[in-house]
């Protein structure tokens, strides 16, 4: 009745090329320190899985994998990473003593069990392949199932999606506990708190007309650099140029105190 499954050479080549890469990327996801790098490696694993789906005759799932996972879900992950702070790298110190060896031992046991189980189990019949099931088109076949056998789960899932969207909105909604300060209150606070120097605004970067880039700190009257003229992010990154090279030579920078 059904033809037995034969896998063509191109698919085998694709599999042996992509599968080790996917496993290496997944391992790298565990080992890299920065969350952004983990996200990029995970995106690669998901693209590999999309290849596998399409190779296995699941055309619709392959496209959905790219659109939904690598498109929407990974974008959401990166968005939240930007919101929470890209610099928040994981502290790799163990908080529970001996957790890592136990986890790795358990994983080796679990993985070995799964792999040996798959290796020993047989279905008792030949693999069939999707040629017959996909004869009228993969999308058409899926639609037929989705809107006949699975129409009730389909509707329940749509309700779940709407509930999740509402839940995310409720969770992300931020209720103010105090009234937003008016411009007048902000101005008053600026003059009352700290020094009058900060009330007038921070000094801008750059030295005279010689170099006005944002990474060149302004010079104070005594010739030293003004740290408040540079953005804190640039300072943390170390992208600050020494501005003393742009000093005017014929300006007397010695400070004489007036009595």
């Amino acid at each position, binding site marked *: 009745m059904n033809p037995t499954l034969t896998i063509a050479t191109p698919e085998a080549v694709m599999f042996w090329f992509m599968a080790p890469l996917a496993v290496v990327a997944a391992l790298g*996801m565990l080992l890299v320190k920065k969350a952004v790098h983990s996200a990029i490696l995970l995106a690669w694993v998901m693209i590999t899985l999309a290849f*596998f789906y399409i190779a296995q005759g699941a055309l619709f*799932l392959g496209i959905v994998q790219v659109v939904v996972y690598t498109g929407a879900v990974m974008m959401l992950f990166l968005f939240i990473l930007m919101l*929470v702070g890209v610099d*928040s790298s994981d502290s790799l110190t163990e908080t529970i003593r001996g957790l890592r060896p136990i986890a790795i031992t358990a994983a080796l046991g679990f993985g070995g069990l799964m792999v040996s189980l798959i290796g020993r189990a047989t279905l008792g019949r030949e693999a069939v392949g999707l040629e017959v099931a996909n004869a009228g088109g*993969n999308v058409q076949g899926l639609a037929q*199932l989705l809107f006949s056998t699975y129409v009730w789960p389909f509707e329940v899932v749509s309700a779940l999606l709407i509930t999740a969207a509402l839940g995310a909105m409720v969770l992300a909604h931020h209720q103010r506990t105090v009234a937003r300060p008016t411009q007048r209150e902000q101005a008053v606070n600026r003059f009352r708190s700290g020094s009058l120097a900060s009330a007038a605004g921070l000094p801008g970067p750059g030295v005279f007309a010689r170099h006005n880039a944002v990474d060149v700190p302004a010079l104070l009257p005594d010739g030293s650099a003004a740290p408040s003229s540079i953005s804190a992010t640039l300072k943390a990154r170390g992208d600050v140029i020494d501005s003393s090279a742009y000093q005017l030579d014929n300006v007397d920078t010695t400070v004489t105190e007036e009595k």
Partner: protein
Amino acid sequence: MNPYNYLYVAAILFTIGAVGVVVRRNAIVVFMCVELMLNASNLTLTTFSRINGDLNGQVVAFFTMVIAACEVVVGLAIIVTIFRSRRSSSIDDASLLKR
């Protein structure tokens, strides 16, 4: 090559994801590892759908994707809420119930 090789890859990816959930401390990375586990199970479903010549597995994998999308939306909203109150995305810092 036989189609069971896809099952081995799925099992390995699932195991790696499970280790990541236990070992990593950043809540976002933990979430990504959960996604990896869901993806591995999807690969298993698709492979069995091919072995059996039956599209039901692909429909279930499609439902899994929808559930994963819901889970990510709510989970990331929870992470943002925790981050807003604790200024941290580490799962060790959300330990009020322990004390």
